[in-house]
């Protein structure tokens, strides 16, 4: 039995329906697609495979979250209006084309035009998977904190960031070709900077928006979530890695590169997860009167 005792009050109310399963999906799904994308870019079939594996795992979490998982296939029925429905297609395309590309990449016997076609398709699908969750949130009329055009972009950026971090962490385990860390770390510096700009601008926009949105920002900057948001997402997840990496990055390649970048990667992943967590938990409805 539901125990929501604020149900009968006219007030700003938190969204409660989406919990850690959805949050983890947002994080993992995005990261998986991101990982696939870079892997595709640097042409590393095994890494691509790893990305797909993560994606399947993430999608499984999403299934668990359904009230009636047995009927999941019905979710494909409304692509013309529902971003969730569209997402189902993006994920499917990515898995199929991605798998094809991996297979081609390993067997590497495919005729050029077909292979490029598959790659192009898979790349597109990957980008779609990275951004569509942003579109699930941003049009929401219910939760002002979510309806911002920033989200698709932020989610893309964060997904790529996380994808690369996963690649960095996985690099020692992956079969050849070996993975060049220096360029990745440089990319991350740019990405993290980009995320920082986006997040800060989102916050500043929202703090001038509807009642509930302002309350959300208050939660994140002064209220219940302030420590996690300012300390975790901004501090540990973005600023710290930037400060640490910044000075050393452009000096001729640093020794013991892996341990160094891996640590930064972990910090950023932590921040990314927290970000997805807070975006969902700080979602508030406007009061009805």
């Amino acid at each position, binding site marked *: 039995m539901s125990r929501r005792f604020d149900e*009968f009050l006219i007030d700003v109310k938190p969204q409660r329906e989406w919990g850690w399963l959805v949050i983890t999906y947002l994080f993992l799904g995005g990261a998986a697609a991101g990982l696939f994308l870079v892997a595709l870019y640097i042409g590393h079939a095994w890494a691509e495979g790893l990305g797909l594996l993560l994606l399947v795992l993430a999608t499984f979490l999403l299934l668990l979250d*359904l009230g009636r998982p047995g*009927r999941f296939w019905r979710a494909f029925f409304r692509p013309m209006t529902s971003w969730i429905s569209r997402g189902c297609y993006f994920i499917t395309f990515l898995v199929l084309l991605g798998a094809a590309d991996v297979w081609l990449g390993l067997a590497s016997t495919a005729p050029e035009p077909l292979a490029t076609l598959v790659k192009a398709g898979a790349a597109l699908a990957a980008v779609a998977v990275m951004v569509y969750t942003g579109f699930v949130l941003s049009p929401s009329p219910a939760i002002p904190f979510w309806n911002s055009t920033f989200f698709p972009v932020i989610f893309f950026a964060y997904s790529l960031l996380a994808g690369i971090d996963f690649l960095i962490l996985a690099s020692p385990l992956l079969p050849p070709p070996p993975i060049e860390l220096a360029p990745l770390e440089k990319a991350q510096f740019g990405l993290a900077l980009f995320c920082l700009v986006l997040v800060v601008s989102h916050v500043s926009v929202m703090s001038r928006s509807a009642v509930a949105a302002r309350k959300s920002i208050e939660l994140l900057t002064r209220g219940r979530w302030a420590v996690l948001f300012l300390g975790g997402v901004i501090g540990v997840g973005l600023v710290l890695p930037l400060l640490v990496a910044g000075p050393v990055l452009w000096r001729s390649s640093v020794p013991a590169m892996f341990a160094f970048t891996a640590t930064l990667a972990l910090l950023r992943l932590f921040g990314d997860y927290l970000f997805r967590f807070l975006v969902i938990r700080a979602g508030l409805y406007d009061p009805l009167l």
Partner: protein
Amino acid sequence: MARYGMVIDLNSCIGCNACTIACKAEHATPAGIFWAKVLEKEVGKFPAARRVFLPVLCNHCQKPACMEVCPTGATYKRGDGIVLIDYDQCIGCRSCMEACPYAARSFYDGNGAYYPGFTTPYETMRQDFAEGVVMKCTFCADRVDQGLDPACVQTCPTECRIFGDLEDPESKVSQLIAQKKARPLLPEKGLEPSVFYVGG
């Protein structure tokens, strides 16, 4: 084709919650789930303070956000504007709940019986919802189809809930909306609700 709607007179509503329970009785809604609610808040400081009552239900929006995000088509709108959920199609993804600004929807976890460890004959007969789906006010579509008023309207002791056809200029709802400056909740959300409020 009619377009059904409701007008609620906030001056007359006394917060008795007859509507709340009438809805529960009519639809055997599960324990802890209310399709009709009477929200409250206080305004002002003592002694110039008072409580405010706001009866709410699904607004049967003309542009239902819930329907737009529904990936399965379980949520649909009838020709007469009534927004319904097909429990056989719903997968319980709850995106509709995220999308509805009016908190009109509830997720049913399958524990519907009111007496711990006992399901009454009434519940056995009337609670025919599948577990794991989302539910909400149906505007009493079944009653309306028989030409009856919704249960909450029928019982309202102050007669402050009026139901009718918004497209018929002669209907009491249309009249009220025309005369008194009726407004929906959160019009800025652009969902074009079919439930309007006057007074208050």
